[in-house]
């Protein structure tokens, strides 16, 4: 496969064992450019571990993983970091640094540890901060920000990389509804502009707005498809123990799928 036709990120038969448990048990998937995918599943399904595997932060015991057709491990770390951005779940950032300096770290892979940021870097940082509405507190200490504000700064850090592959672990945690929506719209736009985006989400209604839903259960990828796919919706309801049903509604003239709790 040539670099042009290869999916941005592709894993086959990925396996990861943590503490004697197969947390990821033979997952194969390919993230596509121009598509944003929601990764969902019950607690402990292995979503975060899968994302870390895909980001190259854990070595997989079995399976192969390719970034733009080239084995992930074969990329020099810095070059890989400009093509793939990962956002940690419940990111830590308690320090007294100014918020902007954290976002600027997203440009570190491009200009290098000993290099200096240039105008392109400054633009990327400004864009990412505008998109996450963090510009207003760019000069404030991280430790003075609220949980939601800090989360947006961390997301801005990941966006500032302007990577072709975006892997975000619960980016909407701590965010209020308007900021959740703004963030997801921004991610969708990044996908439309050509990025491959995968996002772990707990809010199923947000997940059902994605182009594609990846459903995980006990380390396996049990369903993979657009929300319009009936088999996917059935699998989604099943892995959450029928705690809800998925109904179709028409919002703003568009058919949409929503999860309704079975109370």
């Amino acid at each position, binding site marked *: 496969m040539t670099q042009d036709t290869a999916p941005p990120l592709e894993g086959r038969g990925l396996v990861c064992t943590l503490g004697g448990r197969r947390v990821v048990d033979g997952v194969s998937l390919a993230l596509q450019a121009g598509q944003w995918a929601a990764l969902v599943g019950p607690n402990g399904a292995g979503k975060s571990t899968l994302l870390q595997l895909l980001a*190259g932060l854990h070595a997989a015991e079995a399976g192969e993983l390719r970034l733009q057709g080239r084995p992930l491990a074969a990329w020099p770390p810095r070059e890989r970091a400009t093509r793939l951005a990962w956002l940690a779940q419940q990111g*830590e950032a308690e320090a007294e640094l100014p918020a902007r*300096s954290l976002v600027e770290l997203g440009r570190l892979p491009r200009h290098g540890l000993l290099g200096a940021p240039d105008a392109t870097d400054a633009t990327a940082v400004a864009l990412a901060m505008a998109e996450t509405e963090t510009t207003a507190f760019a000069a404030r200490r991280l430790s003075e920000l609220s949980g939601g504000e800090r989360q947006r700064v961390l997301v801005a850090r990941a966006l500032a990389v302007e990577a072709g592959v975006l892997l975000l672990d619960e980016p909407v945690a701590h965010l209020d509804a308007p900021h959740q929506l703004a963030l997801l719209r921004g991610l969708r736009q990044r996908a439309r502009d050509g990025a491959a985006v995968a996002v772990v989400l707990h809010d199923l209604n947000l997940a059902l707005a994605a182009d594609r839903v990846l459903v995980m259960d006990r380390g396996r990828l049990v369903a993979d498809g657009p929300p319009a796919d009936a088999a996917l919706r059935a699998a989604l309801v099943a892995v959450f123990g029928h705690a809800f049903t998925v109904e179709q509604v028409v919002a703003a003239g568009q058919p949409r799928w929503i999860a309704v709790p079975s109370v």
Partner: protein
Amino acid sequence: MNTLVRRLVATRTAASPMRLAAALLLVLLALVLLGLAAGAEGLSTAWAQDAALIGDIRAPRTLGAALAGALLGLAGALSQGLFRNPLADPYLLGTAAGAGLAVTLVLAAGGLLGVELGLATGGALARLGLSGAAFVGAIGGMALTLVMARGATRPLTLLLAGVVVGVLLTALGDLLVLASPEALRGQRVFMIGSTSFLGWDSAAALALGLAVALPLAVRLARVLDALVLGEASATSLGLALPRLRLVLVALLALATGCAVAQVGLVAFVGLVAPHLVRRLVVVRHGALLALSALAGAVLLLGADVAARVLVAPQELPVGVLTAVFGGAYLLLLLWRRGRLA
């Protein structure tokens, strides 16, 4: 004065880093002048009359105290950044205990040979032997910690190994003192910390250490910024963390080793200097390291001048002063945050 004090204890007013640097430099300059004038008879401005005294004793001591303070401030900021803990200090990773043990060893060996070594009584050779031992001991303590932690891959393991090495080496030193009690006095002087033995050779060694450690540390400061995001995120940015952390630990050891070799285990300067800077300005680690070095220089030289004039013609050990003032400052900070109230 009042506004400055309010700035130091209340947090949320940020000054510009350049203005803080300028202010610290001005204070440092004033302290240098005081340091040149402060002698056994209090402050003296009879420069011509004191020329020899100033050139031989006060100038190297003043310069040396400022340089040692800068190294400790730098080491404190490095340590707090590496371990992402505002209470980390330069002495964490076995450096202090290693230096203490080495000094005690040399003192005890001197006792066995019938030579009375001591910082106060010994000649230039004894001084050189003691500071050399302290430097080697500090680096050795750190190396032992790294070996026990199997490198610098896991910061928590590194910290624990540092604690264990500290306890072990301190116990060995205590045992040694029991066996040869004549080492006790010299060991106490080293443990408390003192600026009274700084000569031109010490100042030169300190300047060399700072000239190597500070620029390198500032160049690598973005690693400390990235560590704020956590280990995994920093790795995802393409940073070779274990190796970079090892380099930073080595710089920490170098800065700490150089300082303690000349002034002993002066307390609190390394811990307080970065706190002071972070209270006053919102900066990334590059500026924090440089400003902490400057703040450390001001703190230790300030304490040195105070140690000379407060009870002149007697002299206070500088380490006692830094402990009292540093401790009081931290307590004040905690109090203002309401954590002790």
